[in-house]
């Protein structure tokens, strides 16, 4: 267990470092002169020098990196937005709540529906239940977020007129965006859960459990489920960053004022400090989610917990 955790901490540090370097170099990887690119052709020399200084591009590259990182770590300062003229951190903190609200709800929907549906499909393999769940999953997985969002808007907002189409407001405004973000994940989790469950139900120890005389509910929900859930629990963590990815699109569809929307606007407006900050944050979140998944895995799988071996 100790060995395993040391290994994971080591890889955690490397990954954080890589994410930091990548977000920092976003500005520097722009082909040609980044300042010129941001300002466009018609900027004056004065504007040019001012921006170059503001972005710190007049300093040697390692100094830039240290300044950038130090500002983030010590003061939570990601620099100033080039468009809004306010600190990036302020822009982000205004919006982060909305994104968390959206992704959190979607996350709950995904697991609350996905796990039971997957189990049901596995238990009732090759029956109407299975076909219905898997058919629904196939359709949901084939719909891009933005179109699923549009369809939900059309049905519930335009045709039935029972839910608001876009923007923020009360709890009813959260329903459509979080369904949009959550439903495709329901499909993924249901499929994963079903596959794991079928895999486990085929194992010898399930036969042993039956041979012992256990009632079917205990066989399925104690002996099989406990094993089948291990990868799912890991997935619960791994999936978090992907929900932030989906949020980018969903927020655009529903005019939801979150971080994703901010990212798109910033990219379109070439507001690099904001883009860098967002990529850095989501990247860090990704690494943390992975690390958490590894730890939880170690905790729930006795093979890893005791011997420190395993994936």
């Amino acid at each position, binding site marked *: 267990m100790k060995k395993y955790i040391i290994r994971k901490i080591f890889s955690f540090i490397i990954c954080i470092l890589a994410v930091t370097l990548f977000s920092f170099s976003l500005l520097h990887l722009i082909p040609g002169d980044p300042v010129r690119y941001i300002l466009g052709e018609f900027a004056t020399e004065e504007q040019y020098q001012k921006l170059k200084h503001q972005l710190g591009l007049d300093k040697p590259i390692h100094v830039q990196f240290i300044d950038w990182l130090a500002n983030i770590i010590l003061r939570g300062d990601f620099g100033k937005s080039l468009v809004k003229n306010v600190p990036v951190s302020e822009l982000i903190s205004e919006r982060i709540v909305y994104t968390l609200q959206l992704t959190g709800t979607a996350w709950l929907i995904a697991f609350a529906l996905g796990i039971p549906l997957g189990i049901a499909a596995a238990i009732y393999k090759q029956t109407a239940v299975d076909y219905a769940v898997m058919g629904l999953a196939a359709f949901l997985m084939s719909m891009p977020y933005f179109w699923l969002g549009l369809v939900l808007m059309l049905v519930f907002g335009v045709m039935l007129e029972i839910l608001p189409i876009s923007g923020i407001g009360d709890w009813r405004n959260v329903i459509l965006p979080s369904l949009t973000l959550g439903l495709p994940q329901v499909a993924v989790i249901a499929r994963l859960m079903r596959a794991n469950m079928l895999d486990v139900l085929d*194992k*010898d*120890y399930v*036969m*042993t*459990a*039956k*041979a*012992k*005389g*256990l*009632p*079917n509910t*205990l066989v399925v929900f104690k*002996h099989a489920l*406990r*094993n089948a859930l*291990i990868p799912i629990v890991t997935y619960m963590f791994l999936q978090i960053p992907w929900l932030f990815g989906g949020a980018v699109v969903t927020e655009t569809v529903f005019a939801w004022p979150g971080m994703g929307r901010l990212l798109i606007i910033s990219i379109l407006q070439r507001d690099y400090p904001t883009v860098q900050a967002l990529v850095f944050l989501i990247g860090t979140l990704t690494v943390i989610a992975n690390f958490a998944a590894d730890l939880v895995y170690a905790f729930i*799988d*006795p*093979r890893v917990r*005791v*011997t420190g071996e395993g994936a």
Partner: protein
Amino acid sequence: MRNGTLLKIEDLYVNFKTDEGIAKVIDGVSLDIKYGEVLALMGETGCGKSTVAKSILRLLPKNAEVRGKILFKGTNILDLPESELRKIRGKEIGMIFQDPLTALNPVFIVGNQISEMFKIHKLRIKRTILDEVIELLKNVRIPDPQRRYYSYPFELSGGMRQRAMIAMMLAGRPSLLIADEPTSALDVTIQAQILKLIMDLRNDYNMSILLITHDPGVVAEMADRIAIMYAGQIAEIGPVRDIFLNPQHPYTKGLLRALPLGHKEERELENIPGRVPNLIEPPPGCRFHPRCPHAIEKCKKEKPKPVVVSNEHFVFCHLLRGG
């Protein structure tokens, strides 16, 4: 020990639905196991010996179709409702498998998996369940049972896992233990330990044993009677002495002469030509006839009826006219 029959299998047929067609895996098998005896079911890969074992506890997968009767203490197991079946599983009939690592649940400690037996079957206990489990672990000669109670299966060696598995199946004090290739995954020195343990426990617990194996050596050491299976049919059944010293079925004879006894300079091993038939389209009549050096016309048409060789020794072969 009581006299009489504990388990009686009558005319068992098992078909498996597969993508390629229906595999007729068991073709009319009849057997009986008496109180206190060890019956070995021996045969090569794919002969159906494990299928027979699993059909007794109705552990076959859903694509299996089972016909016939399996009478345990007079009641037909195949007709029982789930709730009644569960009272037999583990309590009346225990079962151990070839690979104890995959047969034990990896995420629960051994003690938990054994104590489960006491809870579900509401077994009578003298002290606490923990004490009872440790007692069982002692009975299967697991050293340091207090500590091993808390071990996960992967922390035990192959031999210890099989002991734990046996302990689990002894909890209900079953009258029949089905041992499906119990030592095939183990080294010979460990195999000898486990086989001795099983025989000792049979006496202590007064069990009958159905031993499924491909190894004539294990049979010779353990069994009172043997049934030789070939391609889903019984070829020969009888007391171990009769079968080994006076085999009558061409397949049994071939099998025993194929054993590498002696030395290459002294003798050549007997070849059984050909290979095991496809069970989706099995040969009609006696399924051994395409490989049998003495096959006659009748073998291709009619399924052989048992011929009595001596008391309790029956051969399913048209070539024998006797009794």
